[in-house]
């Protein structure tokens, strides 16, 4: 009696999961297929069968002196890693500050962050660029990761997560053990928050990795350009050099590091389950 519905559930689960997996991986497949096709082939229309221009596309991307792929990957890694680290650490710190302590401005501070959460980023872009110019940070990588310290969405997630998974008793216990507040945060709170940190680190990393709009306005030097700017550069090539095969190849190259980072971080999410045992 008990086994039958569970068996049916497993079958349904498999069907849904396989369907979704197909949908998700399908786009990677056609992306890679396009990276193996030549420009006229792509122009002609769609195909599920790989072409034979893989090496040609790869060579033409790597040999284009105006498209420094390696430094692009390096810059993207620097900016995205720092963005992810700053966003998660400082948001957790802020969330903890508001969650664990009572002080006069607690409520206003919380409401204030919730309000700025709803402000669309496009709105302040031009003012941001003016400001960066005045601060002498134009054409540097700093303005691409420093603002991540204030990430309202990440903060809100950390706060919500603490509400559901961080009992204040643990903090109290640490205090009684003589741990300093800052030490408590780093040694007690951060480990409990690991799944949340990993989750938000992935999101922050990916968002920063694929960001074009602001970096394109900030960076002009070829040696400082991030991958999305290089992809856009290929797309605005003149008619003699315009080559969609090359564009798809660079998009494919740009995806590899992010998949590696993603898979590496996704392990921490799973590892987080084991930490569930510390509760109450």
């Amino acid at each position, binding site marked *: 009696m008990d086994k039958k519905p569970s068996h049916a559930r497993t079958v349904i689960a498999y069907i849904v999961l396989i369907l979704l997996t197909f949908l998700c991986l399908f786009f990677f497949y056609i992306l890679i297929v396009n990276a193996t096709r030549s420009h006229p082939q792509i122009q002609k229309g769609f195909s599920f069968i790989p072409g034979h221009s893989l090496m040609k596309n790869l060579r033409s991307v790597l040999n284009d002196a105006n498209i420094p792929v390696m430094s692009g990957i390096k810059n993207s890694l620097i900016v995205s890693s720092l963005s992810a680290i700053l966003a998660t650490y400082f948001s957790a710190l802020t969330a903890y500050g508001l969650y664990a302590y009572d002080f006069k401005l607690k409520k206003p501070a919380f409401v204030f962050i919730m309000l700025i959460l709803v402000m669309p980023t496009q709105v302040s872009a031009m003012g941001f660029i003016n400001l960066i110019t005045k601060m002498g940070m134009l054409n540097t990588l700093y303005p691409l990761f420093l603002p991540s310290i204030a990430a309202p969405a990440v903060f809100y997630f950390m706060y919500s997560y603490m509400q559901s998974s961080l009992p204040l008793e643990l903090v109290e216990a640490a205090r009684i053990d003589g741990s300093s507040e800052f030490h408590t945060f780093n040694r007690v709170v951060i480990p409990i928050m690991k799944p949340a940190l990993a989750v938000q680190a992935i999101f922050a990393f990916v968002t920063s990795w694929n960001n074009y709009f602001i970096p*394109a306005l900030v960076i002009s030097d070829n*040696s400082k350009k991030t991958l999305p*700017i290089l992809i856009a550069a290929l797309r*605005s090539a*003149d008619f003699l050099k315009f080559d969609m095969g090359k564009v798809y190849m660079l998009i494919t190259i740009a995806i590899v590091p992010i998949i590696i980072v993603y898979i590496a971080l996704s392990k921490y999410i799973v590892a987080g389950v084991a930490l569930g045992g510390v509760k109450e």
Partner: protein
Amino acid sequence: MKKGFKAVLSIALAAAMMFGMTACGGGNSGGGEEAAAEAGKVLNIWCWNDEFQSRFNDYYPGVAEVAEDKSTTTLEDGTVVKWTINPNEGMNYQDKLDAALLAQESAADDEKIDIFLVEADYALKYVDSDYTVDVKELGLTDEDMAEQYQYTKDIVTDSNGAQKGTTWQATPGLFAYRRSIAKDVLGTDDPDEVQAALADWDKFNAVAEQAAAKGYKMLSGYDDSYRTFSNNVSAPWVDGTAVNVDANIMKWVDQTKEFTDKGYNNKTSLWAPEWAADQGPEGKVFGFFYSTWGINFTLLGNSLADPDGAQEVGNGIFGDYAVCYGPEPYYWGGTWICAAAGTDNTELVADVMKQLTCNGEIMKKITLDTQDYTNNQAAMQEIADDPDFGSAFLGGQNHIALFVEAAKNIDMSNAGPYDQGCNEGIQGAFKDYFDGNVDMDGAKANFEKTIKEKFPEIESVNWPE
């Protein structure tokens, strides 16, 4: 004689500059670092891709060395050309260029933009401003530019009549048709006879009807013929604070609606996959409006059955296309060189313009090397007159000969700073009308909304009766 004089002049110029620089350097007690900050040592060029960069590196006579990462080019006199390339996507190039130009006055000499490139679509935004320099002021004479096509000058002439830019490229357009389909529909594939059958829009529409009767489409999409109409308007788009929609634009609307309703086109859009497919072996479309760069690159590539195979007869419909003038002259594309106001390298900027847009020898070489059609009537005439020159793709036809004639008839004196916004706006708004999603009034209303978003200063939109 003339060319000899030019060569002497450029050497003299270079020598003068060298002298000027050593003289300045000598006057400075401060040594290397200060000398590097001297005016004229760095030439800043801004563009959105590496097209001009490769032309410059390959054809400018003064080039001594190109940096490994291509970010700089060193000239024989020691001047360093610094390339700033920002992609176009999302208006990025213009946004950054605008910011840099607005800050030009306060910028250090070596940071000042000397040359920037613009496209026809938005050229007048810069040309009709104080941020560009009259080429005559730089030292270019009418004689220097005598062989350039008039329309390439019109596009970069400001409202006071001053020419503020120059180009190495001319992009006259033609009508590329399928020989096999022309034979079936008109009984001939001879370019002169096909041209006679398509000489004006009434004839063109009549052929469309004949083609439809035989199961062909005259055109592929809605916007294929747009440029031929928009390049032949009777007045600029904007007068004061009013947009005046030209009667010729409405002719395009009526023709396209008729073509769509009667099935004379395939309802595609430029650059869409089905538009490209229509140009290939499976296509049933009579012809395409294409300019210089489009024919031997895009159309050729699309016509092949095996895109990676040999480019020869037997591969797809290679050899089945031919070109004729079509109903009205038009152009499509092009890049212009502008000198930025405040440049501290006027002589060098002038020389770059002279060498890369006026020098007939260099122009001819560029065309023969790259198939890029260049902006020099005499040089192009030489190729047009060459009996051995022909395009295998066009069944042996000498298309350069047709470009030479077509380019002379292009009249862009009605070009204005609002062209890009208005052209894109009207095509976008009326696509819904052709698709049957809105009626005529709805399309007009949507165009007016778009215009007011794009140009806050516009107060009214007037439609022809």
